[in-house]
């Protein structure tokens, strides 16, 4: 049986919650973002590379590797409770679907803030290095892999299954990227920002369609995952053991 209590949400409580969720629940996300920022800034300032090489390397990090890293880290946020056998406690205060969505949104606000800041600094150091819209578009593939992992985790009630499934899809997309690009073109290529600066030389005009397409997929998967979590299967499964 799931108990629910109504709490008054003051701004102070809300800020404390945000602080808790960002800094206490998953500090590794912040560490990963800081490390990524340092590496990207180092590459921006590294004079031995041509500008085009720097653009390619930075997009390789931000567009290909960062999404899977973010997905890996965010996937454990809700599962933390399940793996630690404390989902029942969390569930007594808030619906697991809401808890998952809240954490996911908070993490993506953090990542978005980071992207804006990072691209802002990089563009300040080398004007015109990247289009500012990348701060938003880069979030899409990060969200995509996060939602794929979350969906499989919710379906299987196992963090590891989610990670393996997400990682597998990423590996397939990444290793077969030349074939994918040839087959489907830039409009459906999942790592488009990288492809723009890589040898594919994808047209930037494909960005809008590409991101809209993947954003729709993301929201679809997000809705399914939310519904799955709302059924509190984590707790039910746990209580059966």
């Amino acid at each position, binding site marked *: 049986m799931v108990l629910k209590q109504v709490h008054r949400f003051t701004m102070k409580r809300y800020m404390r919650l945000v602080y808790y969720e960002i800094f206490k629940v998953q500090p590794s996300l912040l560490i*990963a973002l800081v490390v990524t920022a340092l590496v990207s800034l180092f590459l921006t300032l590294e004079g031995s590379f041509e500008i085009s090489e720097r653009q390619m390397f930075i997009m390789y990090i931000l567009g290909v590797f960062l999404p899977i890293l973010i997905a890996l880290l965010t996937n454990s946020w809700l599962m933390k409770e399940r793996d630690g056998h404390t989902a029942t406690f969390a569930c007594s205060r808030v619906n697991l679907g809401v808890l998952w969505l809240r954490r996911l949104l908070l993490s993506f606000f953090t990542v978005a803030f980071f992207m804006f800041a990072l691209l802002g600094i990089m563009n300040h150091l080398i004007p015109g290095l990247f289009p500012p819209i990348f701060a938003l578009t880069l979030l899409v593939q990060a969200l995509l892999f996060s939602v794929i992992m979350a969906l499989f985790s919710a379906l299987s009630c196992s963090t590891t299954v989610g990670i393996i499934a997400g*990682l597998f899809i990423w*590996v397939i997309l990444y290793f077969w990227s030349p074939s994918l690009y040839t087959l489907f073109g830039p409009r459906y290529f999942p790592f488009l920002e990288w492809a723009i600066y890589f040898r594919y030389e994808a047209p930037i005009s494909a960005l809008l369609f590409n991101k809209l397409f993947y954003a729709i997929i993301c929201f679809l998967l997000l809705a399914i995952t939310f519904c799955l979590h709302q059924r509190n299967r984590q707790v039910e499964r746990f209580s059966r053991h």
Partner: protein
Amino acid sequence: MKIFLRSFTAQWKLFVWDKVNWLFSLLVLVVALVTNPISELPETTALGYIENIARITGYIACLLFVILYLRFFLNETEKGHNHLWSRNVFGDDYLILKAGVGIAGFLTLISPTVCLTFILSVAFFGIANALNAIWVWVIILLPPVCFVISICSLIGLLINHILVASGVIIIYLGFVLTRPVDLGNLLIFMPTLQMNSALIGFGPETEMLIYQRLFYVCVALFLLMIAFLVTDLRLPRVKTKHSWNAVAAISILSLASLFLSVFWGKKLIDLQHLRSVEPNFQTRQNLRSVCSHFQSYRLYLELSADGAIASGLAEVELSPGRDISALSLLNTGLAVDRFEVRDGDPIRIELQYHGRFVVPYYAYSVYSLPKEIEQIGYAPGAYLEKNLIFLQKLGEWHPYALCSPDEITLILPADITINYNSADTESIDGDMRRLQWQQASDHILLIAGAKYQIEEQEKDQIYLSPNPGLREEDRNEQYGTFFRLVWQNLYDAEGSGSTLIPLPLIKQSYWESEASTLIIPERSRQIDYIWPDDMAKYSENVAMDVLLSWWCREQHCPDLAYGLFSRGSDIDCSYEKSEEASGDKEDDTSSLPLLYYAALKLVEEAEVSGFDHEALLESYSLLLKNEATSIYSPFRFTPKNVETLIRLNNFDAQYGSEAFWDLLLKAFDKSNGGWIEGEVLLELIDTLPEQSDGVETGT
């Protein structure tokens, strides 16, 4: 030991009973089946099939296994396992137990893939070939898995957080795995092999592959030893006093693995230096101009049983006033022992050398290389290993590689099987065989040591690799057909008693006329790239290769071979560009449409399904009128080439096949270095019918 084995079994059961781990097994199986469909098995070899599956399994498995192994490795370090850590034995054996179970667990999880692959290999290639290819699994897959387990153990211990540790390792592995570099790079733990031959296996890459694998096994052991050192610091165990024996054993193992890592790494880098050399075009150009000043060039070569050059001696007599001291093109694996110049008329030069022949990377790379490298063909001109010895007349196994030797004496162990040789004299003295060539005219001097199966077809002989697949049989049939057709059309003979020999590494066929032997490339990137998607186009390529071997039989013309197979897939663009640039001085490539048209005639005569001669020529006519925009062509056509092709077609239509083949023979007589001038060819087209029949031309 008993306790260790019991713990090992218990841990292995824990690992294997975890249902999540079998998801990994399923994914690996799916990827193996999807990337190597059963329908394509007849087109490959057992070695190629298993190497491909092992490599893809390795790529996918190494990344996914990180998650499973770290989860398993750090399982007992989480809360709730204090009772286990209270026992000293558990802490003592923890690392070795986890690493061992990691390897055993990995093998268990990939066993469905291995079993299925093995069953398919037995079904398609026979039990002997399937068993022979098992070592490929071991050599390709085990070192990277050991490396991944070691690095995961070390990073897992240091970070002690599954997600962060797996994120760090996956980023590192993902970055390293997609680097487009070859075997010699020390970072690459999962190499992509360029060579895969039914006759010589991984061929020139075998030695590097072995060094690379040994390097990674030693690195894995060294990382594990470092992990041992940090176990006391990072594991929640009761600290105990270590015995001196254990400390000494760990220290010795650490030092030994470090030393061996450096040793194998150094050997790998040294070999990579030898292998990564590129052709010296300046020296080649200078040498080519000096060859004509050689009054005599004699070679004496002694090979050991493993194919190494035990002793080589080149004696040159040179017109005075020439200096060839800096013109040696000797292979980088060979060392010069003595270089002596005796002045006089003529100048006498002696160069003595020995060593192991190293095939450079550019000579067998499957990737496209710069035009000037592609144009020189298989420049090393030899392969000297235990399982195959072959020598081309012109090659880097002798110092003045582009000059044709007047006399060659080769001594090799008598027990090496001679598959083919063009020697003038042959004798056996004790346990050594002596072969001698005087003014050798054939391109290929010797093929020995290969385990060919010889198939007799009427009077013809076809050499097959030890495990010929359907692909090899189809290819031989195609080559055999076109070989016969060339004989029929050009010599009005059946070409009976001919021999077909596939040879690895070479890039074009060789027509050894005296012996009626066609030596064909075992696998050629330029010829086979279209296989098996379009049989008609593939037949065109084979016909062109056979014709080219006939055309180049008395001269060395790899640049023509490059020109003929330079692929004109972007003809729609190049045609326009060439037209714009037609005013500029450009190379005369008139041999190309002539040989191409002759090849089209052969394909038409062979009645290859899907080939429509008229439709193809019609599309070229439209291209000339700018009414067609895109057309497949084996090489880059210039407008001049298209025009020549159409004129050849008109000529053929008007005067018939016999006149065309006569034209080809006449054109061959007028060619120089494989190339014929466009004007000469057009003059032949216009005047030949008049000369032969007195028939008025109306083209």
